[in-house]
């Protein structure tokens, strides 16, 4: 109940913000009868109207993850975001070892095994992508010079 109500309210807010920013779209001297604003405003209205339904007639709440699972998910999210941020600076091998190892650890909680999986995935994928498939991933950290 609560989840759906919240989801509906957020969607409604987004819809209103969307319509507001769509009405700010600058028009240009090249104009067709509809212009660039109308369709986004229609979409925003559909979103707003549809959002009323879960607010008024919510479904039963889903089973949200408990605290420990939620922590696991949060850590996984942080790891993935970290990976996205450092991949350009650390190169593929190091960043993939870290990310793959940490995700593996989230699942099995065996540190040595996770480290091994991290290293072998990084090296294995690097070999497959660069040698076999011909991509050009930067392997080592660029600051080491090449």
């Amino acid at each position, binding site marked *: 109940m609560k989840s759906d109500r919240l*989801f509906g309210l957020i969607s409604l807010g987004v*819809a209103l913000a*969307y319509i507001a*920013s*769509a009405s700010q*779209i*600058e*028009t*240009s001297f*090249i*104009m*067709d*009868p*509809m212009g*660039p604003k109308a*369709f*986004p405003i229609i*979409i*925003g209205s*559909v*979103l707003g109207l*549809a*959002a009323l*339904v*879960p607010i008024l007639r919510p*479904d039963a709440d*889903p089973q*949200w*993850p408990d605290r420990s*699972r939620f922590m*696991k*998910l949060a850590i*996984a*999210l942080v790891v*993935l*975001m970290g*990976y*996205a*941020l450092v*991949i350009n600076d650390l190169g*593929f091998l190091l960043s*993939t070892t870290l*990310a*793959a*190892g940490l*995700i*593996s650890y*989230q*699942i*099995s909680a065996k540190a040595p095994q996770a480290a091994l*999986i*991290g290293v072998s*995935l*990084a090296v294995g*994928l690097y070999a497959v*992508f660069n040698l076999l*498939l*011909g*991509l050009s*991933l930067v392997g080592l950290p660029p600051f080491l010079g090449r």
Partner: protein
Amino acid sequence: MEVFDLLGVGFAVALTPQNLGLAVAGCILGTMIGALPGLGPSNGVAILIPLAFSLGLDATAALVLMTSVYYGAMYGGRISSILLNIPGDEPALMTTLDGYPMAKQGRAADALVLSGVASFVGAMIATLGLILLAPLLSKIAYLFGPAEYFALYLLAFCTLGGVASNNQAKAAIAAAIGLGLAMIGLDGNTGMSRLTFGSLHLLEGIDFLVAIVGLFAVTEVFVFIESQGRDSAVGVKLGKITIPYRDIIATRWTMVRGTAIGFVAGVLPGAGASLGSFLAYTAEKRIAKDPESFGKGDPRGVVAPEAGNNAAAGGALIPMLTLGVPGSGTTAVLLALLMTLNITPGPTLFTDRPDVVWGLIAALLIANVVLLILNVPMVRFFVKILSVPPQILLPAVTMISFVGIYSLSGSSFDLMMMIAFGTFGYALRKLDVPTVPIILGILLGNHMEDNLRRAMVISGGDWKILFSSGLSIGLWVAAIGGFVAPLFLRKLMNKPQRITD
């Protein structure tokens, strides 16, 4: 016969060593993707598309590879359904009902062979249906003007929301989110930026591949981490593989019926393979003289959904190729592939690029034969893959999806956006909001708006043009009907939850 000439052209394209190799590789990859729980046709194909693009494959080669993966995943899904009682992908859900009981009775090998043959029959007849029906439909598609196309896109959203989801309003929200995201970027007509909030990254619009891989693959990673340890699977040993001729002959009409139902479900926009297998199973159970034997390891309960899901997979290609409107989640992803390759699906595709269309069709015929070989005599190899532990599989899948997106642009921004889509997708999954309409919205949003605006230009701003031809009125009626009718039918049929394809 014109068809045979065109097929000849197709086979000439498909039988080049490169394309043949790609078809076989695609079949193997696809069966693996299908067999592994958590990786289905839509996210499997989504992960591989950026890679196919980075590899610089030409249009035909990329399509041959991806559709082989698509067909392969449809075959492979049944393997873990039968052996582990966990559907390898969404369309294989119905196969667990009789496949697993059959395996527990010591007939695992029989169930695998039988379902493999049923998959082959379903996919083969559907591919033949594609050969016959697609050129016809592409001729009809010439009648479509902007107003008709607009109504057609609307129909796709309505049936997708109406038939394939549990809550119309949530499907509508999803569609609006997708369409809304598609508007971001430069407006094609006026050249002005829209809803970019001054961000240069957003000026080019949201890359649909980033959204697709995020919503399908990254979401799946989160769902997998959450459900870790919750699915306890008791595996069944696979004995010697023999061919159960008696069962195959006894279920021949079940195969044909399942195929017919699945094919129709596939051709209709928005239905897709999951619904195809569901309808095939329930129909077979309904006409059976002994419906109580279903669910206890009845061979018909294995054959019907497998024939149905593979036939639907072939059928779903028809609206995608001829009209540019995907009939399911995975064909939406394939549409994204076509758009990345700068190929505009639609009636002109059949006249402008016969090499692509008929090369693809020939490749599908070849892929089916390859898949039959892989999935019947060589099925043991894929059974081994099921024993790869999740702590290896999951990081591998995650890293491959990251490399795919990263190899497209090398930008951290795209990766962050993909993670954002993944997190968003996870929340939506929890709330039972379908994600396929979002993808469809991002893919079709600009076309939909263009056609609406073009119609308005033609009529000088008169809205009545949207209902000016019999065809467009028919499409509007079908759209509204497809959206509203399931509200009343929902009580009559209990659908499986969450349909991703």
